[in-house]
């Protein structure tokens, strides 16, 4: 970043700020977005395998039940729920509302809490289904 034309100053970065809930939610929104990018690549691979490679499809599907598979599935489910709920928060902001610091901090906590509760409930429901 020192070469000629692009050597313009940048705003202070992450490490300089005191942590806040809004900041954590913003970073988590991006992190879950990147995780979901990877998740959708896997989802597409699984979908294609169902169509053309029955052997690998069976192996991937059986992996879902293993401890590692459950961790990945929970991570995917929570990421999807968090990104969706925080996305709703973004859509609400787009209407010009909910932007006051206190409100934004409160909704950050709300989204963190609700995403964990929802993902846990979905997972509990899935485990009940699996034990049918």
């Amino acid at each position, binding site marked *: *970043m020192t070469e000629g034309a*692009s050597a313009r100053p940048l705003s202070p970065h992450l490490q300089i700020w005191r942590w806040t809930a809004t900041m954590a939610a913003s970073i988590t929104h*991006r992190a879950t*977005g*990147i995780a*979901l*990018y990877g998740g*959708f*690549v896997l*989802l*597409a*691979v699984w*979908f*294609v395998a*169902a*169509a*053309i490679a*029955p052997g690998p*499809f*069976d192996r991937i*599907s*059986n992996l*879902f*039940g293993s401890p590692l598979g459950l961790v990945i*599935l929970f991570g995917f*489910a929570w990421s*999807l*729920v968090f990104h*969706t709920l925080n*996305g*709703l928060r*973004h*859509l609400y902001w*787009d209407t010009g509302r909910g932007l006051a610091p206190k409100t934004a901090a409160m909704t950050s906590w709300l989204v963190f809490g609700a995403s964990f509760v929802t993902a846990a409930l*979905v*997972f509990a*429901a*899935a*485990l009940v*289904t*699996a*034990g*049918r």
Partner: protein
Amino acid sequence: MTTRATRTFIAQRASAVLLLPFVIWVVWSLAALAGAEPSQMRAWLTEPVTAVLFAAFIVISAFHMRIGLAEIIEDYVHSGAKGVFMTLNWLAAIAVGAAAIYAAYALAFSS
């Protein structure tokens, strides 16, 4: 009147809204499939309605995630590598979307 940036902004929001019902459906369905045999999962994906909805979910998501990652690249990559990353991002999103369409076609509509 609308610039490319504005169109991208709107496309990001429109795809987000469109994805909401799909997310509920997918989370619900995958939870219901927990513990199922691979053959049962395959049978579910082979139903034409599921195949089409699942492909649509992945295609809209690929569209949405391409914009999201492009935003992150624009924020953090300022060197000449930016164009390379932007191109790779496009290619990955297109590959994911195309793979989903192909899978849906092969599962539910061929033979």
